[in-house]
């Protein structure tokens, strides 16, 4: 698989990760388990960062020609 395809698909993986993390964060917040809130917040932020990298990689390839 080429770079473009990988970054394209990975964005959906990061989207899924963020959906799950956000729900865990909210669950931890209302259950007052602040440890969970922090760890899933960090997971979500990292995956957001990676998604940004993937998106710009994809964009570069997509609009190259």
């Amino acid at each position: 698989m080429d770079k473009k395809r990988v970054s394209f698909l990975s964005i959906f993986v990061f989207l899924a990760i963020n959906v799950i993390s956000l729900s865990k964060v909210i669950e931890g917040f209302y259950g007052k388990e602040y440890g969970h809130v922090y760890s899933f917040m960090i997971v979500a932020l990292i995956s957001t960062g990676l998604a940004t990298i993937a998106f710009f990689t994809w964009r570069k390839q997509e609009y190259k020609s």
Partner: protein
Amino acid sequence: MTEDRKKNNQSANDQDMMKLVDNLNRKEDVNLNRRAFLKASFGTTVALGLATTPFGVISAVRSEKEDSNQVEIASVDELAIGEAKNFNYPTEDEPAVLVRTPDDRYVAYNNKCTHLQCPVFYEKKDNVLLCPCHKGYFDVNNGHPVAGPPQRELPKILLEVKDGKVLAVGREYRHG
């Protein structure tokens, strides 16, 4: 006559359809949609990711407040073994109960029942915490429900015994 008309209609329809097909540049259309879709997905990913931060910030502020909250609730000789005392912790409107257990330890829990928030009492006779509303029973040693409708444990108040005083120093919602 009607047959004829139908036929005419039919062919006119076909002509229209052909024009539509001419208009369509399939490759480009699919491309554009795919791009837009990815961009929307990326936007959603970022939005969801960033939406977690306010929860983190509020949690940090809250737990800081709770950490620095030390309150004296009783002196060591105030309660005899098997006696209990009500107090409020961490704020004035969160009732709690302090128990000196038969094996001479201090334990404390917020005593709002985790079923429907009735006040929970210490029953010396059976050495349990009892919620009279629907006969909910909690274990004195760990605050976990043992019988009746409640499903979750009572929030545990962390205690410290210092200089002959019993201090409340924190709270745990989910514990052992």
